[in-house]
């Protein structure tokens, strides 16, 4: 596999503030690669270093195998879709998209052809003469993406491009982005704080926190096998149980034994377990489930596709359960006594 972008021990400091702390990762050619993390974790800074607007304090960045130190932004084979899009307000759609090609002195008939192709790619044919102020949010988004893509960069960098869109439009754009990615085959590095977006689109995800890389993996690995408390909690939320490990189970104070998969254990010490809310079933009676506990519903939120319950267990811990509304017996009321349970393979040992 060819590596398109590689960061080697990259650190960025602003005076005392360490925005990016010893980050290393490699992006393979053609990958949809996501940088995921909470606000302020250094995603934008990382992207700006790749595109050349910031210089690393330490470490080095390679693009297509070449070191990028001392290469100014306008000479890098990357193109960035800005967090605020940054479309030129004094130019129409055509001139915006043609901007990069004109700088590169591409012949005018070739420019015409490529801009047309791009507008077709994002399903906005005939938009050439539109002014930027005449575009909707979603249309602007697409124009910003093709303004970068038309230059055929080695790597396309996207900084939370779906941030300001409403939910419906976001979902549409996610599908759209995946399609565009498939059609052009360019390497994408996508920055987001939205785990849903990252999980849906990515081939690989880097989870960042406080400037550091905390886990790298496929969406499934990140979601199903979080390596740290932070990742388990940040990606989709989770329920934690802490207890002592004794033959095949974890003994939780006031709750009892939670059986876990053999082989997943560590030696005799305190263990942290993570159980995802949607892996927990809820009902009056539960059958064929490895771990079953009694609880009391304290809150319930009906959300259409699913119902989220807060359930108080006997050890006074509050857990979150997400039950699909499909095949559901009924909605449990607040104060109702229920049983909750999960299979042993769904409890992940974190530490």
């Amino acid at each position, binding site marked *: 596999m060819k590596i398109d972008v590689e960061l080697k021990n990259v650190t960025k400091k602003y005076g005392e503030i360490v925005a990016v702390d010893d980050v290393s990762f490699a992006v393979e050619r053609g990958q949809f690669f996501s940088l995921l993390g909470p606000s302020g974790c250094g995603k934008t800074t990382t992207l700006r270093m790749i595109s050349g607007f910031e210089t690393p304090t330490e470490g080095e960045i390679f693009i297509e195998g070449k070191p990028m130190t001392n290469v100014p932004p306008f000479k890098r084979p990357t193109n960035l879709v800005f*967090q605020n899009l*940054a479309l*030129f*307000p*004094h130019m129409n759609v055509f001139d915006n998209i043609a901007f990069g090609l004109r*700088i590169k002195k591409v012949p005018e008939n070739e420019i015409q052809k490529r801009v047309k192709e791009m507008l077709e790619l994002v399903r906005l044919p005939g938009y050439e003469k539109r002014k930027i102020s005449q575009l909707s949010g979603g249309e602007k988004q697409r124009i910003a993406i093709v303004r970068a893509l038309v230059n055929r960069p080695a790597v396309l960098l996207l900084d939370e491009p779906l941030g300001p869109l409403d939910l419906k439009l976001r979902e549409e754009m996610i599908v759209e982005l995946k399609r565009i990615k498939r059609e052009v085959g360019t390497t994408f590095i996508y920055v987001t704080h939205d785990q849903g977006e990252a999980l849906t689109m990515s081939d690989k995800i880097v989870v960042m926190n406080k400037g550091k890389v905390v886990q790298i993996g496929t969406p499934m690995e990140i979601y199903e096998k979080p390596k740290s408390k932070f990742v388990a909690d940040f990606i989709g939320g989770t329920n934690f149980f802490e207890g002592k490990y004794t033959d095949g189970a974890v003994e939780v104070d006031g709750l009892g034994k939670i059986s876990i998969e053999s082989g997943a254990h560590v030696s005799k010490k305190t263990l942290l377990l993570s159980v995802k809310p949607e892996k927990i079933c809820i009902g009056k009676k539960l059958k064929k489930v490895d771990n079953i506990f009694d609880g009391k519903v304290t809150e319930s939120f009906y959300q259409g596709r699913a119902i989220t319950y807060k359930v108080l267990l006997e050890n006074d811990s509050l857990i979150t359960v997400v039950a699909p509304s499909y095949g559901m017996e009924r909605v449990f009321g607040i104060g109702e006594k229920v049983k909750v349970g999960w299979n042993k393979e769904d409890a992940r040992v974190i530490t």
Partner: protein
Amino acid sequence: MNPREKEASQSPKTKKIELRGILLVVPTYLWLIVTFLIPVISVLMLSFAELHPVTKNIVSFPTMNNYLTLFTNLDYVVVLLRTLLLTVAVTISSVGLAYAVAYFITFKILKNKYTILLAFQAPYIASYMMVLLAWRLLLGRSGVINSLLMSMGLTSGPIELLGYNAFSVWLVLTATWFPWLILPIFVSLEKIDRSLLEASQDLGASPFTTFLKVTFPLSLPGVFVAILFVFIPTIGEFVAPAVVGGTTGLMFGNLIYDFFLKGFRWDIGSAFAVCLLCIVILAVLVLFRKIGFEKLMESL
């Protein structure tokens, strides 16, 4: 107004608000008519009349004689051409200088931007007359600058260019105008979203190309305002040429002034003033058309 807003303004409610807006503007317009239109119309009428030099009675009306006086006398035409040339020169140099300073303050100065901006306005604490008189002392064949240069032995005789002439008028007008022009240019430069400049570089434009293709076009509204600010008063200027212009630096404004207050030929003076007004209107119209004023402002 962009097209979306235009559509919105069709609703009855916004129409009502529009009407209220018009009512608010009307008194101001009336004031403008009284203070601007009436004098202008009087001058216009006067320019087509011939007055008796002593009694000031109207001898004939309408007549083109006053205008003929201007265009048949080569001396007057020369002054008019000199005035146009000087005005264009002052406009270019002062707007250019102001642009350079505004650009520097906007993009290169990180701390205390606004203090520095304000510091450039400091000269206006002194009255215009005071500044002009100071210039009169500095310039001139035997002014301070020339005397200093000669006493230091840097030149054997006085530098003629620094005497009282058209060059000095240009120098003084440029120096007094440019600080004032920094403000509108600064405002439109400061308004430019920095990510647009980064986007330009990201798309392969060098910093210089970015300036030509993004920064400069987006700062045009400020440049436009600055041009109006300096062009209109300069073309009618008569104080600076009177103080540092000598005989070769006189401007059209001086002719009008003399006709009104020295020669008591209000009719000829009026015709000259009307010519000046027409030139200003023409210049403004051309500028509006050239830049596509409304379109330009809209896009920002």
